[in-house]
């Protein structure tokens, strides 16, 4: 009896300290980024491009990375949305057999787990094959490949949870499969669809491995889709080990902006999901 109690006390202690450790890492990361990135952040930092080359120090800011990241992630999310909503809708019972749907779900889960560097490598091979250099376009394609499995899988889950009675009612009133999907199922699943898009966007804007070979890096804001583009994650990757403090500052500021973006998206996703659920039939 006593031994049992000691064991219980010991494990409760271990569980609480594990939880404390996990909590402390998040707090620690946010604190480090705030302490290092906060002072580095200024109006010039976010409104100017680097003036003296990214490894030479000097003035200027991280505007090239901010604009590049937004272009990359927004375009990739838009492309991924078009593909994902189509695939996710097709996976529902009205369109495909359960057997096919389950096979595709398994593959999607596998693709979700594929390391993003592999998407980068694949895109790089394709780029060499078609004779394209590092460019915004290639980066967008790589990020789209990364985002589609995530978005589709989450969308599929929220579409699948739409009550069948709702679809039956729509069918009874004379709407066909497509009308039911677009007008009834999508609207009912809207909170889930929005959180799928935001989850994929958050993943896309934070990923460096897939755009490292494909989007390249530059001090300038891309003027066309064939120009190389800098991004916040690649900027952090290249600059945070720089021997020059002025250059490291840029990485810290970039990390601040990136983390703020990702956290805002994460919170916004929760709030939006909550708000949109008021229009859902329960």
């Amino acid at each position, binding site marked *: 009896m006593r031994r049992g109690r000691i*064991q219980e006390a010991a494990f409760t202690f271990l569980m609480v300290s*594990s939880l404390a450790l996990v909590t402390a890492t998040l707090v620690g990361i946010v604190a480090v980024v705030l302490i290092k990135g906060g002072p580095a952040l200024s109006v010039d930092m976010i409104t100017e491009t680097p003036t003296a080359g990214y490894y030479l120090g000097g003035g200027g800011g991280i505007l090239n990375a901010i604009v590049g990241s937004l272009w990359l992630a927004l375009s990739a999310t838009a492309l991924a949305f078009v593909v994902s909503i189509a695939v996710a809708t097709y996976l529902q019972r009205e369109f495909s057999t359960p057997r096919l749907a389950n096979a595709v779900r398994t593959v999607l889960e596998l693709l979700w787990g594929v390391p993003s560097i592999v998407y980068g490598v694949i895109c790089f091979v394709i780029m060499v094959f078609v004779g394209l250099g590092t460019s915004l376009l290639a980066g967008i394609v790589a990020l789209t490949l990364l985002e589609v499995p995530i978005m589709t899988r989450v969308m599929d889950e929220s579409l699948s949870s739409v009550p069948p009675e709702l679809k039956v009612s729509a069918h009874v009133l004379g709407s066909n499969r497509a009308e039911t999907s677009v007008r009834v199922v999508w609207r009912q699943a809207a909170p889930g669809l929005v959180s799928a898009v935001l989850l994929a966007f958050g993943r896309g804007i934070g990923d460096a491995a897939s755009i490292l070979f494909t989007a390249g890096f530059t001090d300038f804001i891309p003027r066309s889709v064939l120009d190389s583009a800098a991004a916040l994650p690649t900027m*952090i990757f290249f600059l*945070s080990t720089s021997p020059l403090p002025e250059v490291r500052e840029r990485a810290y500021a970039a990390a601040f902006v990136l983390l703020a973006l990702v956290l805002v998206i994460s919170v916004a996703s929760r709030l939006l999901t909550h708000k949109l659920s008021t229009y859902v039939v329960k």
Partner: protein
Amino acid sequence: MVCAFLALVVLILVFKSSYLLGQRSLADLLLTTDWNPPRGRFGLLPIIAGSVYVTGLAMVVAVPVSVLASTYIAEYMRGAAQHVMKSFVDVLAGIPSVVYGMCAIIVLVPLVRDVVAPAFGVNSTGFCVLSAAAVLAVMVFPIIISVCVDIFRAVPQETREASLAVGATKWETTKLVVFRAALPGVFSAVLLGLGRAFGETIAVAMLVGNLPRMPASLFDSAATLPSLIASTYGEMMSIPLYDSAMMLLALILILIVLAFNYLAGLIKKRFERLQLGESA
């Protein structure tokens, strides 16, 4: 289309790496330790060993901590507190890996270089197996915790009540009933985390030193499969065999990760069927 894409990815990698495989035997590539592409030496063993060391060490730390933390969240927290903790873990999972890497360079690398390594009487740059493994462990926490909490919640409430009713304490119930029922699910969560850790590129590339040599101690630099690909992409086009070797690395990487994830999915499905069968 989705299935065809996965097949296409693997096929491209096989095709691109076949050039190197045509010139060297697979055993020769996998079992020699000399990685020197400009001289045409492609021993992959140090890179595979680096991956295994870093990932293994990370999992040794991450698995007990995550399983204990998720047990507390799922079994000992209620209502709002549990909900807040779960959202907290989701936020942690969403932090980009470059940010983890940068924080580790600021905090962990000097710590290892100036405090930990001297305490063991060794010199280290701080960019070593230990730093990479530590940050990898932190990155795997939210993945394992998030899945584990769901798994624990899926164990039917009645089984807990039955155990408590015959006089078991809360901990005895957790240990003997919930753990036992959730074991396959926890195993799949660990495999999922393992797959993610094995493929993690950026944070590891920033911390491990990217030196493809057999690491002799925790304080040595090493290279992992993804970190080497990320750090050498610029030079790899100059020598055709080099390019092909990189593709072989990517192929090995994707096959290993796919195997982990497939297994994890299989076990999880089995667990769900078992639990649904019991509760129905």
